[in-house]
């Protein structure tokens, strides 16, 4: 499910740019951040939100990627009666098939997190490319790109995903592609508008004037300048990937046994959440925590580089 805040708000409010402010008074806040990546990172990490976010993300990542090392049981083996309560051999009880909840939890995060990450990279990457081209080489090509993305946009991502999945099945690769596609138009919009803004700036025009090849202008001048909104987008997109994949799993379009997966844990055990909360609660908590963490981190990053999150996504 792709939430709506990443509107490339073609906001009217930004229409005040034309003003020729002929004095440069104290440099506006937004520009103070315009320096090296390391400085930005340092500034980001000075914010408490960023540190909390980082810790939250790291904790969940550690569970997901190192968890299997500490798993007390085979996560795919039925070792007891279904929905046994915590105690004895199982620290957190068993789930619907009598498999150890803790072991499944420890094994089940890597793929969903990786999948989300990859889907985000692919989706945001494609969106970025399209947005860059559309924003820099306006004209017919840009219009064409953006308008066709608008068409993609007019189907809610989850519906798009459902259509694809029922069309082609539910292989992880397809989940990845579907989720990735749903990101493309949103990222492209943001990148296009940021690119458009940067393209008008003097330093890009200067490069054109001295004849820097267009591709080098894109990669060397424009891309670094839109890193901030892009990173922010990336963070948000990551959280949407996770949530979208979890929702698909909820609707029954997730991975299947004998895979071990958080989304699957939720969908398999949700019907008995009252009687046996752990198998659902654990993965939900993990997903929530990693999402909150990612949000905190991107928020802070946005603050550090002066991107207005609410407006630009």
């Amino acid at each position, binding site marked *: 499910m792709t939430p709506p805040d990443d509107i490339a708000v073609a906001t009217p409010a930004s229409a005040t740019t034309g003003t020729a402010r002929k004095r440069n008074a104290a440099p506006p806040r937004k520009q103070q951040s315009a320096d090296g990546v390391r400085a930005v990172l340092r500034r980001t990490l000075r914010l408490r939100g960023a540190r909390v976010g980082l810790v939250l993300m790291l904790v969940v990542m550690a569970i997901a990627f190192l968890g299997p090392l500490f798993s007390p049981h085979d996560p795919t*083996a*039925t070792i007891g009666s*279904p929905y046994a309560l915590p105690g004895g051999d199982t620290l957190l009880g068993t789930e*619907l*098939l009598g498999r150890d909840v803790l072991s499944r939890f420890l094994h089940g995060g890597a793929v969903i997190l990786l999948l989300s990450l990859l889907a985000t990279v692919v989706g945001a990457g494609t969106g970025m490319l399209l947005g860059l081209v559309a924003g820099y080489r306006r004209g017919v090509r840009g219009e064409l790109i953006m308008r066709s993305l608008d068409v993609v946009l007019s189907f809610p991502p989850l519906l798009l995903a459902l259509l694809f999945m*029922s069309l082609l099945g539910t292989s992880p690769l397809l989940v990845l592609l579907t989720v990735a596609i749903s990101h493309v138009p949103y990222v492209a919009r943001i990148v296009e508008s940021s690119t458009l803004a940067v393209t008008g700036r003097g330093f890009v025009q200067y490069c054109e004037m001295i004849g820097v090849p267009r591709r080098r202008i894109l990669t060397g001048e424009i891309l670094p300048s839109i890193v901030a909104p892009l990173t922010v987008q990336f963070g948000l997109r990551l959280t949407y990937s996770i949530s979208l994949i979890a929702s698909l799993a909820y609707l029954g379009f997730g991975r299947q046994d*004998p895979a071990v997966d958080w989304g699957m844990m939720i969908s*398999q055990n949700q019907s008995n959440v009252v*009687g046996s909360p752990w198998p659902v609660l654990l993965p939900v908590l993990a997903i929530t925590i990693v999402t909150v963490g990612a949000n905190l981190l991107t928020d802070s990053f946005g603050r550090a580089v002066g991107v207005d999150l609410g407006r630009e996504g």
Partner: protein
Amino acid sequence: APISSATGAPTGPRKRGGTFRFAPADFGSTVTTDPQSANSSFALAAAYTDTLVRRDHDWVPRPALAEEFTPEGDDLATWTIRLRDGVTFHNGKPLTADDVIFTIRRNLDPENPGFVAGLLDSLDPRQLTKLDAQTVRLKLKYPNSMLQEGFAEVPAGIVPVGFDPKKPIGTGPFKQQSFTPGQRWVGVRNEDYWMEGRPYLDSLELMGFANADVARVNGLLSRQLDGIDRVPANQLAQLRQRGEINVLVSPTGAFQFVSMRCDKGSQFEDNRVRQAFKLMVDRPQMVDVAFGGLGDVGNDVGSWAKFDPTYDSSLPQRTQDIDKARSLLKAAGQDGMSVRFRVGDVEPGAKTAASLLIQHAKAAGVKLELDVVADLAQFYGSASYRTAQLKNDWNFTQSIYDNASYCWLPSGPYNNTGFDHPKVASLYRQALATSGSKSRELMQELSRVVHDEGPWIVWGRRDIADAYNRKFTGPVPDASGLGFNGFHWEEISLA
């Protein structure tokens, strides 16, 4: 022998009135009101139609619209049906022999065969004669001592001549008031119902909660529903905690099984492979985990001594034997085989069982690859349902006869395994041509063949749990496996 008479049926005078809101498990998004359609809902069809014969709660066929249903002479190839007097359709038209003939022909229409066409296979649509307004003579293509069974199935409900599924009319206890596809069917009391004093309810509302057991349970918990059927075992504890809710567990013959494609060129063509699969299953574990212990292990036949006298009770119960399974596979040259397992969420516990089966297969060195089909319509609807090598399925309480005519004979409409055993076919014909204990023995022999060589791993039988609000009364344990009181809606009333 049939189990003892239903217990707990209320005695004494019953209250009239009330609306019973019920969410049947089989009321999906594509449900139609046409009883004979593959997309029908039994809960719905049983509300407005009646069958000629009806099974009671112990699964014994009893006369319903047919007052008499008897063979003429001894060859079992000619039967007469005499209809009950004074039965009228919802539009006031009396029930006649013409309606019965119309219904049978409709079911046998080659363009659009009915759900029970397989059970009625012995009927010749051109050989149906109306003897008088109330009497029909049926001349069969071949003898069939079990002919009544086909007419006891809900989809065989009698509809009037010129039946229009858009304006469904029957003789059943409730008249359709409105129908919104996928969402809701509302029926009001048929004041002229042929059973004296019934139904008790003013109206019956059936609501569509497709693939949504949690929502059905929630609806009952939040008092938006008065009853639900086929509750998953793991939801029962929650329901039992609530004083206002009554949980009714019915021992039934409804069973879940895995079917193996065994025609030429299929992975299970070799009976040793089929036997190996039957041996690798840990049946008690599956019944425990998937059915929450509410049921029994199955013996690969699909019929149960408890309900079906044609089942051979001397058959030894098959148990897990991984070593033997391995050696059989080896002998067949299939050790380490890998199979795609097509799984639908056909019934509560079905997916769970499939997941367990993966573990069992793994122990026997077989790799099962799950191919989960999210939607039932698609599971049953698409072509791969027929061609899949391994798939799960389920059935209501069935007799050997039912199973054979539906699924084991090459002509069976639901034979999806390509199972074609000459001995089965000949035993079947012989059994139909005889009656009484002779027939029974032949069927028992058939069951032995199937136990050995059949295409099914019938791993368990399920006790079906229904739940309803104590504001209502009437439902009793029902052996049919259909669900809630066998959908004898006319027996439900306010408490």
